[in-house]
Every structure is written in structure tokens, then in C-alpha cells.
């Protein structure tokens, strides 16, 4: 038994996997952008990773129990932040997501909200303390989750909003969902789909189009279906062995949409082939399994929920992003963790890993 958490207690295997995935991301960003006006992006990404590692260490230092203590306050700050974004945030690419702090850092509040919801739900599930969640418990979880989801949807940012949901769902599952509740949930979702379908006219035009495109990509190859088709062409033409680093014509000629970010896996699939995709997906599987391992070894139930909250978000992002690349899901704008270019995305992953390290380092601490 040790008294103090120490840096040696970081999960080095987990970090090795994270490092490998990040390196693949850097290389693919380089490959996708080196011959274009975006050249040099990989250095920015590397900088973000550096910032992320520092942030991860900082987050691991503060005892997660302290964070859990402050959960209600954090939640209030997060919701307030989202409201501020809706009121004074500035628009980029048609969505209000950013708050400018001192004109230097563009803070994407919804990314912070992802971390807050992990902590808040961990606190809630730990507090419930039962193996059989009641309907009231489920309702409370629903309210806690759907308030930020609604606010983020308002921005509008369907992708980030969606990401919060699995944290709640996985938490419910782990906390002990009753089979009848689960069955009812499935039935309700099954009924909601046609209703939602009829409500689709209330969606934003771009959302309608994305759905339409997803269902019938071949209808309009020049328009909205273009991204998915181009992504599939890149992936499919990569074949088993790939076209080689920097040699993917779809990637290099810019046919792959946002090839350095949301569709970076398509670029990678074209250049590295099925083999490369296998390596990436197995690394992600390793990451998830390692996270689950950390959850299993957590000192207490609250720590376990924190780790699994992180796992839920990362796993969901990998699943949704990868499915989108091969046309199994519509375009939602969810990046691939650690590989897609983007400061907010990278910062979130390392902050979330900071929470995981935090829990791990304290598993033997009294």
C-alpha cells in the first residue's frame, strides 16, 4: 500500500497504444496534406498532442474524488457555458460552437461538456448504489443527459450531442438495468424511428439532406452523396495491400472529403489497404480493452464509471466514424479519436485519458 499516487503508476501499456495511434494519425495527416496548401498540419497536430499530454498529467494530479465532489458545480458551469455559446458564441461553418477566450483560444464548450457529463454521471451512478435501477433513476439520468444534449443540438452539432448519449446508456447498463426496462426501451426506440422519420421535415435542411444521402447515396452523386461515395471509392480502391504511403490518388487529389479529419480513415484505407485498417482497428480494440481492464481494477465504483464513461465516448466515436467511412452510417461530423486532425478533439482525448490515469494511480491509495 502506497500513500501517494505516483507517475510510475500511469498505464504505460495504454499510453503506448495511444502513442502508436497518434503516430499513425500524424503520418496520415502528413500524407494527406503535404502536397497541398495545408502542408505542415502534422506539426500543429503534434503540438496539440504535446499540450494534451501536459493536460493529461495535470488532470491526473487532482484526485478524482475531488472532481466528483464538485460534480454539481461542474455541471452548472457546463450548462451555463453552453447557454453562453448559444447567445454570444461565434459561428464557424454554420454552427455556433466556439467561445473566444481572450481572442486566443477558441474554446469548444461542448468538448468540455463531454468530460463534465462523464464525471457527473459517474457521481450519479455511484450515488444510486443499487444493482437495479428504478424508473425514477432512469428518468433522472435521462434529464441530466438530455439537457446538455439538447443545448448542443441547438448549436447545431448533432455529432457531439450524440456522443453524450452512450455515456448514459453504458452507465445504465453497468449500474444494473432491469430487463423489462431494456425491453421497453427497445420497443420505444423502434416506435420512435417512424415518428422521427415523419418529423424529419423539422430538421435543418442539411440534416435532412444527410439522412436522404445516407439512405440513397446514388441519387445525387454530384451533391450530398458525394462525400460518402468518394470515401467508399478511396477505401475500396485501396484494396488489400493499399496504394502505398502518399500514393493514394483519391487522397492526394483531394477526392476524399476532409481527408485529414473526419474522413482520415478513408485516406488511410486507400494508402495502407485492408492491412492498415486492421492494424488501426486492432489498436483501437486494444485501447478499449485496456480501458475496460482499468475499469475492472478501479478502486471504487465511481472510478469505474469514470473510466467506462471515457471508454463509451471513445468507443462510440470509433464506431460511428468508421461506420461512416464505409457508408454504414450517415455523415455526422464525429472525428476519429487521436487520428483525426483537430485541437479540440485531441485535447478531449488526453483530458479524458487524464481522468483514466487519475483513477488508475489511485487504485492502491487509501
Amino acid at each position, binding site marked *: 500500500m502506497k500513500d501517494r499516487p505516483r507517475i510510475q503508476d500511469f498505464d504505460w501499456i495504454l499510453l503506448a497504444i495511444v502513442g502508436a495511434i497518434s503516430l499513425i494519425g500524424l503520418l496520415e495527416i502528413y500524407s494527406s496534406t503535404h502536397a497541398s496548401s495545408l502542408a505542415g498540419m502534422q506539426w500543429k497536430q503534434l503540438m496539440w498532442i504535446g499540450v494534451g499530454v501536459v493536460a493529461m498529467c495535470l488532470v491526473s494530479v487532482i484526485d478524482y474524488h475531488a472532481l466528483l465532489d464538485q460534480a454539481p458545480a461542474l455541471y452548472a458551469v457546463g450548462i451555463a457555458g453552453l447557454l453562453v455559446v448559444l447567445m454570444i458564441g461565434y459561428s464557424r461553418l454554420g454552427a455556433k460552437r466556439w467561445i473566444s477566450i481572450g481572442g486566443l483560444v477558441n474554446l469548444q464548450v461542448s468538448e468540455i461538456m463531454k468530460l463534465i457529463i462523464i464525471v457527473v454521471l459517474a457521481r450519479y451512478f455511484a450515488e444510486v448504489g443499487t444493482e437495479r435501477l428504478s424508473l425514477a433513476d432512469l428518468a433522472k439520468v435521462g434529464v441530466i443527459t438530455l439537457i446538455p444534449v439538447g443545448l448542443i443540438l441547438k448549436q447545431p452539432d448533432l455529432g457531439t450531442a450524440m456522443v453524450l448519449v452512450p455515456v448514459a446508456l453504458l452507465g445504465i447498463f453497468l449500474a444494473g438495468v432491469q430487463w423489462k426496462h431494456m425491453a421497453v426501451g427497445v420497443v420505444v426506440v423502434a416506435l420512435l424511428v417512424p415518428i422521427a422519420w415523419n418529423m424529419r421535415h423539422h430538421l435543418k435542411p442539411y440534416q435532412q439532406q444527410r439522412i436522404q444521402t445516407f439512405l440513397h447515396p446514388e441519387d445525387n452523386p*454530384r451533391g450530398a452523396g458525394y462525400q460518402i461515395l468518394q470515401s467508399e471509392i478511396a477505401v*475500396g480502391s485501396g484494396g*488489400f495491400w493499399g496504394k502505398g504511403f502518399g500514393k493514394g490518388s483519391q487522397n492526394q487529389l483531394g477526392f476524399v472529403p476532409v481527408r485529414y479529419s473526419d474522413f482520415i480513415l478513408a485516406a488511410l484505407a486507400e494508402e495502407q489497404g485492408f492491412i492498415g485498417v486492421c492494424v488501426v482497428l486492432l489498436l483501437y480494440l486494444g485501447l478499449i480493452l485496456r480501458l475496460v481492464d482499468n475499469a475492472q481494477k478501479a478502486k471504487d465504483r*465511481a472510478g469505474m464509471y469514470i473510466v467506462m464513461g471515457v471508454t463509451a465516448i471513445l468507443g462510440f466515436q470509433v464506431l460511428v466514424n468508421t461506420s461512416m467511412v464505409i457508408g454504414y452510417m450517415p455523415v455526422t461530423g464525429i472525428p476519429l479519436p487521436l487520428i483525426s486532425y483537430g485541437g479540440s478533439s485531441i485535447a478531449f482525448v488526453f483530458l479524458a485519458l487524464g481522468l483514466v490515469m487519475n483513477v488508475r494511480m489511485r487504485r492502491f491509495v487509501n
Partner: protein
Amino acid sequence: MSSWNVNDQRIPQGRLTLFSYLSVVFVIFLLVGFWKLQVVQSGHYSDLAEKNGIRSIPIIAPRGAMLDREGRVLVDSYPSFSILLLRDSPKLVEKYLPEIESGLGISKEDMQEQLDAAKSEPRFMPIIIKPEASQADLAFVESHRPDIPILDLMMVQRRRYPYGEMFANTIGYVGEVSPQELNESNGRYRPGDIVGKAGLEKEYNGELEGTDGMRRVVVNSVGKVVRTLDNVDAIPGKPIQLTIDYDLQSVAEHDMQGKEGAVVAMDARTGAILAMVSRPTFNPNDFAIRIPPREWKRLNTDPETPLLNRAIQAQLAPGSVFKIVMATAMLESKVIPPTFTVYCPGYANFYGRIFHCDHAHGEVDLHKAIVASCDVYFYNVGKQLGIDRISYYANALGLGHLTGIDLPGEEPGLVPSEAWVERVYHHKWYPGSTISVSIGQGSVMATPIQLARMIAGVASGGNLVHPHLLKDDTNVKITRFPLSQNTVDQVTAGMYGVVNEPDGTTAESVKLKDIEFCGKTGTAQTMSYELQNRLGKHIKENGWFVGYAPRENPEIVVAALVQGAGWGSFVAPVVRDVVKAYYDKKNGQFQPPVSMAEGTPKADVSRSLVASAGAHHP
């Protein structure tokens, strides 16, 4: 501490393990998805990927315009569209060929031929399958961009000859580069490139043609240009200014309508060609677009040889025009005294053979021999000079070799000599042949331009100019063959008499008021009388007239040839009209010939490429 249960240490190990298994299932599910795309359907997507790609679309540099000496546009270019076939993927070409065949009306064989011709070119370079696309063709390509992704359009600068046949043989024409030119160009040309094929278009191709640019664009799988990678601008060809004078050319063209022959007008002091006509001719606009093989064959096999530039390529017996060489040789060599006279009974007997003359001229001296063109006088001169002396002076006066005019395909003519006959026929020179050569018959041959240069040379005391069409004062060169003043006086007096004396061969019909218009007629048999008698038909003689003004140190010299004219004096009015036009212009009194007046262009001071081509006089 807090109200919530911090020390709850129950971890749901089973559910966590279940989650792990679920993760493995999801990864397998995703890998199956990738397997389907990357392994099962890889071929399909590779095809689609191939359709996405880079296209290199040439930007054709416009050829330089040609201007006359006063800046009037004789040739220019106008923009038009060509249809390109992108052949990056042979599979796609194969697939869409039938559709293109019906849509654009190009036969499959034609397209295959084009494809074969471009076999050695890099595949990303498209080929031109249809130059000069019609509105319907453009609509077809535009409307089928998504479903026939291998067609594209290219703007080209098409050659335009606003005056059609008027300058055709001199200016020449352009056409697609031939396989042979392609080979010799060391990669400079690509199939379908337009190059100068004849005349000035060929001679000054290097100046006229610019450097093509290239636009590299990225197109997606439905043929839409996504972005431009780079743009190398075309460098337009340089315009060239010619020595040709549109007005003199139009006069000469007018007079030569319906005739077969040639006219060359030249500045006798510099060698600048003022007008050059060859008839029959062709319309170079027919070549500006791809010429149909049938039309090409017709032009090449036409017995009237419309593609021949008779002004520099018709090597014909000069007839009596050659007597000027004889007179010069007689006076300069001093073998025969200037006072030499002959009695002409209308024929003469040499070496047992009768040689005819047109008339019985009676007592003939040199002056009368030139004025009345007495053959018998020059038979005797020739007999006394001998072939090699005649040959020497003919050569010195520019016959028998190229004038060096800046046009491709010039013919050298022929001046026979003893050495020549031995080299070619391996026998001794027959003295009787000298008698024929003395009046410009037999084996002596000259082109219109050579005769113009020779007459100007003699009249100017031996200044043999170098004919040229590019207006550039630096290329005025003169070869000196000094003649004595006595020779010049006597010969030019004779040529003055031809036009201005009552017994001159033109019988005063072409006299010009206030202008010392001189000249020499020539009538050349194209077949011997014996042969004509045997064939039982009379072939009309070729008529020549070479005129100039003024009498000494001439400014302008004009040679005209009318094949089958029958008599040189019938040709003289053509020359007179051109000389008169020259002086009228000088005096500001020029009136364009009636049939030509309509299209007379204005001077194009700006030298823009598509300027006043069709502009009319007010």
C-alpha cells in the same frame, strides 16, 4: 466527507467483461465492412477511382497573324472548340466509343485511327477527336459530362484566311502535324497539333506558332472539374509583316481570274515581293480544320496542280524573255560586235535543220531583234557564243539556281551546259541544241521569280536582288554582277521599245502615260511542232511577259506567266495593270479593281489578331 457513497467498491466485473466481448464483435463487424469494400468490391471501386483523376488540357497558343506591308491583316485566328477524348482508361474508351460515335457522328474507325496515332503519347494527354465542334456537338458534350466522362472541350485558335484563295499559294496553309513531322520534332509536337504545312505558314512556322500552355485540373468521378492544379499560360505566336501589298495583289488576282499561271511583282531595288499570284489555286480555309482525305487527294492529284505555287515552282521554257540574257551575253562578252546585224527571211538553217521565226523581219540589228523579238538574230548570236558562254551569263543573272526566296519548295530551273549534258545524258552537247536555247527553248527552264529577278538585274546594271516576303529591312541583300553602261543602255532601250515602239511585240497596246514602262514578251512552246503534228493537236503556247519601270534603275518589276495563253503579248496587260497600280498608289490615285473592291481591308494599325479581317471600305 460527501454525502454520496465513496467507498462502494463493488465493480460489475461480469458486465465489464461482456462489454469487452461486445467491443470485439463490433471490431469484427467493422472489419467485415472493410473487407467487403477493399477485397470483395475492390475492382469496382478501383474503376471508379480511375475516373477520378487529373486531366491535362492543352491551352493552344494562337498562331501569329500575317499582315501586308501596310499592316492589313491577311491571315489571323479565331477561337473555336475542339472535342477531346480522354484516354486515361482504355476500358472506359472502349465502353463509351459507340455512344460517342452516334453522338458526335465520328466513325469508330476514324477514332481508332486517332487513338493509334497517339499510342506513344502519355495516356493522360487527351486526343482531339473532333476539331471545330458545332453547336450541337458542344451541347452533346456538355449534357453528357456525367455519363460520358471521357469527353472534354478545348478552346483552340483556328486559322482564318479572310481572303480565301487570294494569297493561298504564297501564304500556304496549316494542318495537323504528320506522323513524320511528329517523329522529327523530338517531342515538340503532339498528335493533332496544328503546324504550317506549306508556303509562309511553313517557312515562318517557328515565329508564327506560339508555345502551348497546359491546364491541369482535377476532375471527379462524374467529370466535374474540382479544382485547377496549375495553369501554364500559352504564349501566342508572333505576327509577321509581309512585303506583300494587298492592293497590287488584288489587281494581279483580278487579272488572273480564270487563267492558269502566275504573277510576281517585286520591288526591283530591294527584292521585296509586292504581289505573288498562282492560278489555279485552293482555299486554305479548307485545311484550317482537319481536311477530309478525299479532298486532300483531289487537290494532290488534280492535273491543274492547284497546290503548286507557280511563281516559284513552275519551271518552264522562258521563251523570248531569255533573249535578254542572250543580248547581255553578246554585249558583255564582246565576242560579237554591238553593231552585229542579220537578215531574217523568216527562218534559218543550222546544222541541216530549219529553225523558224515568227516573221520575215528583214535586216535586223540588236535593238530591232529585242523589240520585234526576232528569233533568227538570236539563233546567230547563240551559235557564235556557244552554250557554255550562254550558260555562264544565264547563271550569273540568277537562272538555273534558287533565288533563295523565303518560301519552301522553290525550284531551281535549268540552264544547260556541256558539262550538264555529259553528266546527265552521258553524251556530247549537240551544237543544234544551242540554237534552241538561244530563244529560250530546248532544255532551258526558269521560274517566274527568276525571270523577274533577271530582268531587274539587267535593267539595274547588275544588281541581283534577293526576293523575300518578310518585311524586314535587314534582309535586303544584293548580289552584284556589274554590267557595262553600254550593255544596260542597249538592252533597256530594246525593252522600252517592246512596249513603246510601233513595231514592238506588244504593238503599243500596253503603253503607260508618263511611265517608262518596259518589258519583254515570251512565247514558249510546251511541245515541239513535230510532236504536236504527230499528236494531231495544237497545244497553245505559254505566254510570258516581264515588265518593269522606269527604264533604268527600275523600282518595280513584274513577271507574268499565262499557261496556254498562246502569245506573250496577251500577258502584257496583266503586268501593265500591276505596274500602273504601283504608280497610282504612289500618286495617291489608286482605285481597287471592280471585282475586288468589296473586300478591300483597312490597315490594321493595332495589329490585333482578330481585327479588321472582314472590314469594308466605307
